[in-house]
């Protein structure tokens, strides 16, 4: 039964969920609880925290996320192709070349538009 494999995966998943729960529960029994006000302030190198913590961050992160999405999805197509490549033959290579070439142009575009260049933060 192939589904047994997923039973195993589920067991692993279950254990992975269980461990934190168990550990944190045990920790709660063991650890002290002595709250003071300063313990609950946000850490800012010892200064009084200024403003909110959720500051606006650089747009660059978003651009990287976009690039990631594009190339991650590319792999979705690369994998089945890779598995079947032996049976597909040379023409499949040509097709994949076209596919990858288009994506590489995207990469070049990003490169040229300085998306890949990290400026501070």
């Amino acid at each position, binding site marked *: 039964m192939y589904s047994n494999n997923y039973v195993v995966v589920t067991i692993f998943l279950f254990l992975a969920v269980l461990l934190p729960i168990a550990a944190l529960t045990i920790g709660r029994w063991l650890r002290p609880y002595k709250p003071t006000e300063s313990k609950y302030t946000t850490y800012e190198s010892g200064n009084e925290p200024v403003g909110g913590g959720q500051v606006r961050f650089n747009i660059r992160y978003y651009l990287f996320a976009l690039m*990631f999405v594009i190339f991650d999805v590319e792999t979705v197509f690369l994998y089945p192709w890779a598995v079947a490549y032996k049976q597909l033959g040379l023409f499949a290579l040509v097709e994949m070349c076209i596919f990858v070439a288009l994506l590489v142009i995207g990469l070049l575009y990003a490169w040229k538009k300085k998306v890949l260049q990290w400026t501070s933060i």
Partner: protein
Amino acid sequence: MPELLQQQLTWVNFAIFFAWGVVLLLVVLGFVTYAIYFERKVIGWMQMRIGPNRVGPLGLLQSVADVFKLLIKEDTIPRKAERELFILAPVITFIPAFTVIAAIPFTDRLISSDLNIGVLFYVALSGISTIGIVLGGWASNNKYALLGGMRSAAQMISYEIPLVISVVGTVMMTGSMNLRTIADFQAGGFWHWNFLPQIIGFCVFVIAAVSELNRTPFDLPEAESELVAGYHVEYSGFRFAFFMLAEYVYVFAIAGLTTTLFLGGWHAPFPFLDFIPGIIWFLLKFSSIVFFLFWLRATLPRVRVDQLMGLGWKVLLPLSLVNIFVTAIYMAIAM
């Protein structure tokens, strides 16, 4: 184990699977404990220091003590933090780290599961950890944590691409995504191991893997000198421990994966050494990779963030793509 997986699911089988899972969990925890110990020790030696030596003989219980300390430490959640997400983040980071281990075959017989999409399983699940890290940074409601989390996420996703694509070459050669099949394919001497024909892929994979692990020289998310401690500034006690745990479990997983994908898994380097059990070979290769990671940490300085991103996108990604086409052309000619 393979036979059990073939059978109809019964309660007995289920109990065996469960027991196996628990055993593996303990093994992993043990690994993490002593990997940390060895890391400190090895780096100590390399830097002409002694390393931990106080708790227990040779300091063997140092990590145990650390864990225990974390366990009984007071746990604070900043008032401004998003409480639910804050609690959830380390858990989310840890879960996939452990779950992916289900896909790794230790020997021919000693496997947890025989997924026919093992590679994909690993890749898909390991991506989830990023979410935990971003979440942790965001939920802390702390500027350092947020920036650390974002930076970490950026790094992880940037290196995930070359990591994933560098594996494609291996998959092509084998024609399967089943990790056991891939390992089996490399039987018969180290010249059949994938790291030779896939040398580009191997290099890209290792570099990307190191970065995925947020380890030196790519440990920017935790850059103390820049961002205090990255995404887990606000974490303390066992919540913090889970971030660390996840990191070292990933070390385990990556080492196992590298062994399977590129270093022939449980196969001996020379056919005449086949009499030695596969698990020994596996552990040997596994350990050397872990050692390699420690070694790197002791040796290399941290890269700058712009170098980091540049390397990922401008070098590794094109290289991994080149690897695919080199492999494809080679295979087309060989066919």
